[in-house]
């Protein structure tokens, strides 16, 4: 008898527990701030667009000096990467990132930041296994997947020819 009662009690206790958690989740949902979709997108659009426009401006300046389009493009990429990494070093990049969101993480600047940010964080582990390894902790996946995808496409083109 006592066992049956216990089981009944447990069953009873289980059911309301689930409901309680559900209710609690709903309750929490009311208070978690919803991302402001529109303002976030607008900020990302403007900042991302401005970065691309600045890149085009620099490229045009370089091409005026007689650089070929390909070289100028590479040079602009280098400039963007270096300035993003410098900003990360100064700790400014995070503040910009908070404001612009994807606007600064989707351009190549975000890739540059993803290399330096963890590397600085793990500096204490030494220049080889700390900085050297963590430089690729976020950029590694991007490089592995990107290079794999690009090369596979190239090989497919070679085979199709």
């Amino acid at each position, binding site marked *: 008898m006592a066992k049956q009662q216990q089981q009944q009690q447990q069953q009873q206790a289980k059911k309301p527990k689930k409901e309680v958690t559900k209710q609690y989740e709903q309750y929490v949902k009311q208070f978690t701030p919803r991302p402001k979709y529109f303002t976030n997108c607008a900020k990302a659009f403007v900042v991302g*667009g401005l970065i*691309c426009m600045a890149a085009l401006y620099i490229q045009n300046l370089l091409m005026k000096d007689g650089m070929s389009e390909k070289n100028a493009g590479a040079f602009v990429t280098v400039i963007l990467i*270096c300035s993003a*990494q410098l900003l990360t070093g100064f700790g400014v990049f995070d503040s910009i990132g908070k404001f612009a969101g*994807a606007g600064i993480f989707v351009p*190549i600047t975000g890739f540059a930041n993803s290399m330096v940010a963890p590397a600085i964080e793990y500096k204490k582990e030494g220049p080889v296994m700390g900085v050297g390894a963590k*430089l690729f902790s*976020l950029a590694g996946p991007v490089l592995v997947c990107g290079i794999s995808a690009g090369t596979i496409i190239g090989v497919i083109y*070679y085979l199709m020819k």
Partner: protein
Amino acid sequence: MDYLYAFLIGGGICVIGQVLMDTTKLTTPRILVIFVVAGAVLTGLGLYEPLVQLAKNGATVPLPGFGYSLAKGAMDGAKEGFLAALSGGLKNTAAGLTAAVVFGYIVSLIFSPKSKR
């Protein structure tokens, strides 16, 4: 006119990223991977090249542009032979990647971690 297209296309790609960040639980590195791979695949299908022609840096500066130059280098190399197909992608992006690694290493060694504001 070029500047307008660069602004619109570049901003548009960033908005896609922002929507992914806000509406899904994808972390930033995953979004970066998705963008690079998507850029490479679109290039392979011949869909990204027109965008680059139209918007120039607006299409090459965001991360799909990185996938674009990887895939384009490999595809251009494929015309010359198998080895060129393997080396083409990295050859095309070598300057940016080398700068990112070397300069990133130097910056990481110089600066010390700062608490987030």
